[in-house]
């Protein structure tokens, strides 16, 4: 069996009394695009910095190619990082920035220059090679930072929220640049972000972190469709999270009764809860349906329409149930025109049995 490129084994990182990363275990295979996602302070950047050797784990081991890396200093690792601040050297030109890593590896001056220019050309910024960093735009700096890291031909590239300083249009452009690069080079990208859209748009696998722990690891689709717990369900958003007390348990199903009604969902991978526990399940907004006539389904919540939000062809309807809780339905704009919501005083949110996703007891 081939060892994974990177392996975190029970890694803990403490700063004085503060535990930044607690018992983190995961592996990254060669050639994967992995995103580490979570809110600020969840330990994602610390995890990345430990991989680069800029922080030492307090406990546990980090392995690369099966070799324990804990005692290997940062400058002996081939783990270039693209900083959130970019960290380009302001006293060097774009080309000299790109040459830096090559010079450190003892590459001759002429070869440094040739390879640096080749990468600047590949990043479509060769005309700015001799410019000062300060005179470049945000997007151009971004490309210099990428060239500087990739010119040393690493097997793994670490990215720490590299797109957070760019405006929305540029973010989309750079996302496609990054995914194309990753595919062409076939190297591993580890991408830290707080942005769900960036992570889901680019990554093969997403690691969601919360308070130093890993909440879920899976493909973007897994995480979107089958959040493992309440934190992931809330973080991913666009979900209706319905809570209630467990009134009945059966093989593979559980009945939850709350202020919105009594519903039965499948437990899936989760352990069966006990009667009386407070449990939750999720109905994704785009899997919920809305109607003005009461549907026959067992999963119905009567509610009233509060507001609508258009994003292109997608409409999100915000609804209020009788107990005051807010619910969401997402649908295509042309589907909405079939439902006459304007005249109706009461609407009904419903879902098919298989779309109720149980997320356990907390």
């Amino acid at each position, binding site marked *: 069996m081939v060892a994974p490129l990177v392996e975190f084994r029970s890694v803990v990182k403490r700063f004085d009394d503060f535990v930044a990363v607690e018992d983190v275990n995961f592996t990254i295979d060669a050639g994967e695009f992995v995103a580490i996602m979570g809110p600020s302070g969840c330990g994602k950047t610390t995890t990345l910095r430990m991989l*680069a*050797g*800029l922080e030492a784990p307090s406990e546990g081991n980090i392995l690369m190619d099966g070799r324990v890396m804990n005692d290997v*200093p*940062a*400058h*002996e690792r*081939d*783990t*270039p*990082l693209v*900083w959130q*601040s970019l*960290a*380009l*050297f*302001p*006293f060097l030109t774009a080309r000299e920035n790109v040459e*830096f*890593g090559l010079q*450190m*590896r003892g590459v001759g001056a002429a070869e440094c220059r040739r390879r640096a220019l080749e990468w600047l050309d590949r990043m479509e910024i060769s005309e700015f090679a001799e410019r*000062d960093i300060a005179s470049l735009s945000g997007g151009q700096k971004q490309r210099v930072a990428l060239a*500087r*890291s990739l010119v*040393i031909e690493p097997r793994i590239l670490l990215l720490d929220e590299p797109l957070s300083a760019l405006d929305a249009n540029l973010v989309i452009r750079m996302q496609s640049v990054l995914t194309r690069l990753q595919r062409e080079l076939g190297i591993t990208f580890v991408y830290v972000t707080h942005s769900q859209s960036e992570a889901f748009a680019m990554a093969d696998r997403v690691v969601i972190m919360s308070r130093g722990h890993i909440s879920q690891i899976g493909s973007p689709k897994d995480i979107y469709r089958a959040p493992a717990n309440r934190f992931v369900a809330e973080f991913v958003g666009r979900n209706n999270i319905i809570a209630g007390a467990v009134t009945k348990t059966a093989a593979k199903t559980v009945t939850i009764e709350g202020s919105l009604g009594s519903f039965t969902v499948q437990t899936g991978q989760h352990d069966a809860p006990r009667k009386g526990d407070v449990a939750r399940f999720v109905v994704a907004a785009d899997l919920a349906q809305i109607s003005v006539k009461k549907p026959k389904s067992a999963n119905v919540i009567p509610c009233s329409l509060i507001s609508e939000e258009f994003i292109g062809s997608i409409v999100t309807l915000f609804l209020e149930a009788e107990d005051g809780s807010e619910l969401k339905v997402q649908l295509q704009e042309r589907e909405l025109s079939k439902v006459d919501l304007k005249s109706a005083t009461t609407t009904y949110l419903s879902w098919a049995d298989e779309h109720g996703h149980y997320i356990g007891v907390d």
Partner: protein
Amino acid sequence: MRTFSIFKQTFRLPIVLWQSLFFIGPLCFTVAMSFFIVRNYRMQEDFVMKNWAKMLGRDYFWDSYFLTWGLAGIGTIVTMTVAFPAAYTLAFKVSETVRRWAIFMLIIPFFTSYLVRIFSWYVILAESGVINAGLSYLGLGPFVMLNTKFGTVVGYMTLTLPLVIILQTFALSNVDRSLVEAAFNLGCRPFRTIYRVILPMARTGLIIAAVFCFILSFGDFVSPYYLGGSKPPTLPILIVDTVKSGQQWPRAAVVAVVMMVTLFVVAFAGIMAAYRRRVG
């Protein structure tokens, strides 16, 4: 259209007055005085080149000039070198609290007169002083340290070292940590990072520290007089000697003007180098 604001002018006036009364005025007078003449030990207004020709034409003036340059230059190099590891440690290796206390401790020497601190070196550097007593246990010495160029440089450093450490610490503290980490990340060894990243980033502050150090040493009278033995004289000593021997205020003014011009050039060149946009 510009409006004359009394409010703004009121704030500008004190500094303008101060500078013209106590800097520009005396400076102009010194320059004018260098063309005056001394008759029967009395100075008279005149416009002759004699003082300039006399001073600049003498070897002892130029010996003194280059000696002052040499001592201040060596003092600056030694001070900058000795200060750097200390400043580097304070800027990068210690906690914020330790840094604050260290800066505070470095200010304390300025509480006492520089002259008093210079005299305390007698106890340490004298032939029967602390250092020679210590060395005699090892069967070495005694070494003559007072009334030597070594003594002068030690004196200069007494004046400049705490200030230079403080200025260097501020210069290094402003270096963006992520740039240092970026250098490590790209394979740069910690020692190499100092001259590849930290020195270029801290350049402005470090040059200003060196300029300060040079200016303070170049114009210092106390150290070369009391610890350097005043022979051969540095320029500040030469000024005093020239005045004492025959009331030659105009010739002393020549020395003073030469010193001023030298320091203007050094300070200007230093500032230009410090703020030049790119290296090499």
